[in-house]
């Protein structure tokens, strides 16, 4: 029965099969890291772990990225691996609530992770317990065509007014200020997060995504009003609801649009789409709207967990501890092209990563995960759908907020 891609990494795996019953040193890992860079990073990670722990044999099941989101439900209940990757924040809540993840407080205590991984502890904690180990994260912000900005004499804006002015200049020169593809909704979630973090601050944003504040609150309206300024000003790509996020890269690559509110993984995609990232692509922090509010950022964290049905929890914990180490996180993230969570790790020598690391280390206002990780699934879906609708039909704001308020009443 070929259930998953079994990538037995060493020939010892063959012995396991011959032996019939799995011996103590077999560690089963499920991940969705099937894109080239994440795949390479995990190959190296597992090889490194096996070299240090010769008594442990890793069996690695690689899933396709999209399918993983639903298949994790099945394997956690039916055929649990020893380690599985997932995401921090509320995204892991259903599995924690269903008792499918194992708390790993002991791994954190024994390895002093509360210190080295301090920045992510909050997003890994539910009900006072820690549910996994974070190994990578990446910044969000504004990626822009620096050659186009230079051509029209625009500086990377730091304030809302500068940002609006930059947009006007771009429009006057026939360039759409912001490209976006909202067909799959989450891109709109990123824009909302930033506008809300800048308008109302981190604490409010977290209260909102935790369901503690009404969607019809005036502070939410203030965020939406700022958004409406951009919509009314024709800042966003036309027909964005027709495009996926990748399709929306095209106008920017072709020079018809100049900015994209995105995560750092987009750099790779810009390259693939034919942009010369060294000379054409730049990054700036999402501009400040209200200077009295401490600047918060968005940086989704990816994590590893031990399912409660795992057979080899002992080695699974060893693996988590290994992954938490500074040197290991440096290496993994160099290959991933992302940022290590361990504060003693080194950030790869890359303009965008260095910029992100600097920005995040100076962030005092707090770090959000992402709308669909901070809010529970049902709220996230309804919210992002509402944002998409708002971006096309801003006049329906009241109806949208009331609908979200109705979902909030049920989802929490």
């Amino acid at each position, binding site marked *: 029965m070929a259930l998953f891609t079994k990538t037995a990494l060493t020939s010892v795996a063959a012995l396991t099969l011959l032996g019939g019953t799995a011996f103590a040193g077999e560690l089963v890992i499920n991940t969705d890291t099937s894109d080239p860079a994440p795949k390479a990073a995990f190959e190296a990670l597992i090889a490194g772990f096996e070299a240090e722990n010769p008594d442990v044999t890793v069996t690695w099941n690689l899933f396709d990225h999209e399918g993983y*989101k639903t298949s994790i439900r099945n394997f956690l*209940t039916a055929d649990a691996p020893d380690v599985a990757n997932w995401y921090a924040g509320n995204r892991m809540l*259903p*599995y924690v609530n269903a008792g499918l993840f194992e708390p790993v407080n002991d791994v954190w205590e024994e390895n002093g992770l509360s210190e080295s991984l301090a920045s992510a502890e909050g997003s890994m904690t539910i009900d006072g317990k820690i549910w996994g180990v974070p190994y990578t994260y990446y910044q969000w912000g504004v990626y822009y065509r620096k050659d186009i900005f230079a051509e029209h004499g625009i500086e990377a804006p730091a304030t809302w007014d500068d940002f609006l002015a930059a947009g006007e200049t771009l429009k006057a020169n026939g360039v759409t200020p912001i490209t976006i593809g909202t*067909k*799959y*909704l989450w891109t709109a979630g990123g824009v909302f997060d930033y506008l809300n973090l800048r308008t109302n601050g981190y604490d409010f944003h977290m209260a909102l995504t935790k369901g503690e504040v009404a969607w019809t609150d005036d502070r939410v309206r203030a965020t939406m009003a700022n958004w409406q300024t951009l919509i009314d000003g024709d800042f966003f790509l036309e027909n964005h609801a027709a495009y996926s996020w990748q399709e929306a890269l095209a106008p920017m690559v072709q020079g018809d649009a100049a900015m994209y509110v995105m995560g750092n993984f987009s750099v790779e995609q810009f390259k693939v789409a034919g942009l010369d990232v060294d000379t054409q692509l730049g990054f700036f922090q999402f501009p400040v709207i209200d200077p009295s509010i401490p600047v918060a950022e968005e940086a989704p964290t990816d994590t590893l967990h031990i399912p409660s049905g795992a057979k080899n929890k002992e080695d699974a914990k060893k693996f988590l501890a290994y992954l938490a180490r500074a040197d290991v996180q440096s290496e993994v993230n160099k290959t991933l092209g992302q940022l290590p969570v361990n504060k003693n790790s080194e950030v790869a020598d890359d303009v965008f990563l260095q910029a992100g690391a600097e920005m995040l280390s100076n962030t005092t206002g707090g770090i959000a995960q992402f709308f*669909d990780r901070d809010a529970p699934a049902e709220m996230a879906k309804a919210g992002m759908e509402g944002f998409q609708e708002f971006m*096309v039909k801003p006049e329906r704001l009241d109806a949208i907020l009331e609908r979200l308020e109705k979902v909030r009443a049920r989802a929490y």
Partner: protein
Amino acid sequence: MNARRKFDQKKIAPWLFLAPGMLMFLIYVIIPVFQSMNISLYDWDGLGEKTFIGMDNYVELFDDEAFYTSLKNNIIWLVLYMLAIPAGLFIALFLNQTVFGIRLYKSLFFFPFVISQVVVGLVFSWFYDPSFGLMNVMLNFFGIDSIAVLADERYVTYGIIAAGLWPQTAYCMILYLTGLNAVDPEQIEAGRLDNAKGWRMLWYVVLPQLKPATFIAIVVTVIGALRSFDLIAIMTAGGPWGSSRVLAFYMYEQAFSEYGFRMGYGAAIAVVLFLIMLVYIAFFLTKMYRDERG
């Protein structure tokens, strides 16, 4: 002795022949229907424990905007999908001639039905693309602005239905082409003597003879319309902002999609869809029952 054995055999044999098929059907079709009805009474995320909540899912459903949007779209689908029947008849009449190569023409016209709806969906998404889709290239040629069909709540459902009509029309066409083969030439001749022409001929002479084909066409088109899932999943995933959902897709979204963890609620939607379908099942079975008797 021998006769008696035969007698027993005749009694047992049908059950032995039926057993494997019935067993499979029972496990995979009959029982799950009742299981779903049961699940619809629970609050269940598919992971943890089920909580019995009685009719709460249904109560919520009847106060759910998205449910009504889906229901409305289902009705639009049902009504507009029927266009496949006259359209199929029209093409069948057009092709029902004997000229050189007509058989190949008939096969090629049938083509869209053979290919997967996934491919049809991709083809049409592309046809509608606002920046370079063939439809908009043509509109622009006539000086009309591009329409982002799949991103506009006013057009999206119609755009998907149009894509669905393409293979469905081909299906109806082939049903009618076969039906036309069986049309009695003498009756046509008789009609001609009565001076029936054009529409009158079609309506009073040809169509009555195509009744069996029309019946099958209606049945398959209704099923096709209520099963509309593939095209929506491929072309819009229910968007923009859920305006192209139908019940079948909404159910999937609630129970299995990336953010869907509501098995009970999803099951309730499926039960409603099932009840709608039951009307057609009853209609079809009654008709079949009458045929069997007659």
